[in-house]
């Protein structure tokens, strides 16, 4: 078994167009959620989200690329460029042949579906652009990363709703740990902030109209975000041999399925995933200093997640910190675990715990230290990142300071 470390990180999300800006915003408790701006937004009852602004695709990609890159692919490529540059890896020879890319997304090219359905249904057009299919397919982002960086090993896309990127990173971790791949590019991306994407979510009646306030008694739902988080997972010996900077070690993961309800979360499914990640990492519960919560700000998730944490950690649940950065960047759905892993890395490397902002009233059913409203300095050696998806599919990743 190989040790697995992270040697590169990249992101784009409502808090920043790169990792340093995102972490600075998390430290400052910046809220990236605001009024949505896109066509027909006035016909939505939910008009807020963690939207990425100041990212005009025209300046970054040429016309041919734009005809093939949905916004979720654009986000992925931007974040991958940052992560792979930081890692310093150049993929050639055997490294290229064995290294791959595993990414998560729930919806893939949602705005491409939306734009083209609008063209044929609303506008009555009878033909669409030839590249609609390769643009919207869920694996488009992973494929373009593989082509851009010459990644010829195991590559695919994982889709498990809000746990997609955690499941993807778990696969990448398992491949590096087993020795199958010396390095893997992994993470996730999502871009559902378009008329049809938000309209679909409105139907569930779980969206907030004003703010995402995880764990706060007056919370009233989730708020969607968009963006990507991409990492380079690498064999520790490989990274050390080339003198790479190591951001943290990935030490374990677990995946569970509730086998219960299609939308309602299960305490035991979440608890088994957290306990499983600890067991896989061979770490004791009392070593965990920080949990990046799934923390959606819905009534169902937050109390279930807190109860699961109490079950797994016992008395230590009152000593660890647990925060939801969705309060700042929104819920990136299939990309959310990847962006949230950045908060874990910041905790391990910088000793800064990202806050849960928008917190206004304690909830007795969420009576944990949720790091309300302001970031906190603390020394943490082990952190967990939780993702609990619709469909009852859960994935938890454990990371440790190196």
């Amino acid at each position, binding site marked *: 078994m190989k040790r697995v470390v992270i040697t590169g990180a990249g992101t784009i999300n409502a808090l920043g167009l790169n990792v340093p800006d995102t972490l600075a915003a998390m430290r400052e408790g910046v809220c990236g959620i605001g009024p949505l701006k896109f066509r027909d937004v006035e016909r939505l009852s939910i008009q807020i989200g963690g939207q990425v602004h100041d990212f005009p695709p025209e300046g970054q990609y040429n016309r041919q690329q734009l*005809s093939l890159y949905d916004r979720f692919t654009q986000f992925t490529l931007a974040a991958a460029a940052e992560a792979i540059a930081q890692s310093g890896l150049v993929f050639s020879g055997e490294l290229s042949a064995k290294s791959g890319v595993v990414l998560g997304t729930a919806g893939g090219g949602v705005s491409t579906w939306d734009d083209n359905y609008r063209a044929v249904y609303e506008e009555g057009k*009878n*033909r669409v*652009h*030839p*590249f609609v299919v390769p643009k919207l397919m869920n694996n488009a982002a992973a494929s373009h990363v593989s082509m851009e960086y010459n990644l010829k090993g195991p590559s695919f896309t994982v889709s498990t709703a809000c746990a997609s990127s955690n499941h993807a990173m778990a696969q990448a971790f398992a491949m590096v740990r087993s020795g199958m791949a010396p390095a893997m590019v992994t993470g996730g991306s999502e871009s559902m902030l378009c008329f049809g994407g938000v309209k679909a979510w409105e139907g569930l009646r779980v969206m907030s109209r004003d703010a995402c306030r995880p764990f706060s008694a007056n919370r009233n739902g989730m708020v969607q975000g968009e963006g990507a988080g991409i990492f380079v997972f690498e064999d520790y010996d490989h990274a050390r041999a080339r003198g790479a900077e190591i951001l943290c070690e990935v030490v374990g993961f677990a995946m569970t399925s509730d086998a219960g309800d299609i939308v309602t979360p299960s305490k035991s499914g979440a608890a088994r995933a957290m306990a499983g990640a600890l067991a896989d990492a061979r770490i004791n519960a009392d070593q965990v200093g920080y949990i990046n919560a799934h923390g959606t700000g819905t009534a169902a998730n937050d109390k279930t997640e807190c109860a699961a944490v109490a079950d797994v950690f016992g008395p230590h649940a009152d000593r660890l910190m647990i925060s939801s950065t969705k309060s700042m960047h929104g819920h990136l759905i299939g990309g959310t675990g990847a962006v949230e892993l950045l908060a874990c890395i910041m905790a391990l490397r910088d000793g800064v715990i990202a806050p849960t902002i928008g917190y206004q009233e304690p909830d007795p059913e969420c009576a944990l230290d949720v790091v309300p409203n302001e970031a906190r300095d603390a020394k943490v050696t082990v952190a967990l990142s939780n993702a609990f998806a619709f469909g009852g599919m859960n994935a938890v990743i454990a990371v440790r300071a190196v």
Partner: protein
Amino acid sequence: MNVQDQVIAILADQAVLEPADVSMTSRLEDLGIDSMGIVESIFAIEETFDISVPFNANQPDASDFDISSVASIVAGIERLKAEQG
């Protein structure tokens, strides 16, 4: 613009060339337009002339629309416009 100039503009755009570099005798493969470029060009021709081009990328040679050169494309468009107009 007449049909010929419009076709040259479409193909030049696709090949990232100046229209002056594309002539009636130019062949698409010589212009560097690959199979995806051909499909995009067909799309642009359909949009520009409001016609439906019978073209199957699996069997380009069997299609009832000769895309081998600028001249053959122009002739095909003239015929389709007459048929579908």
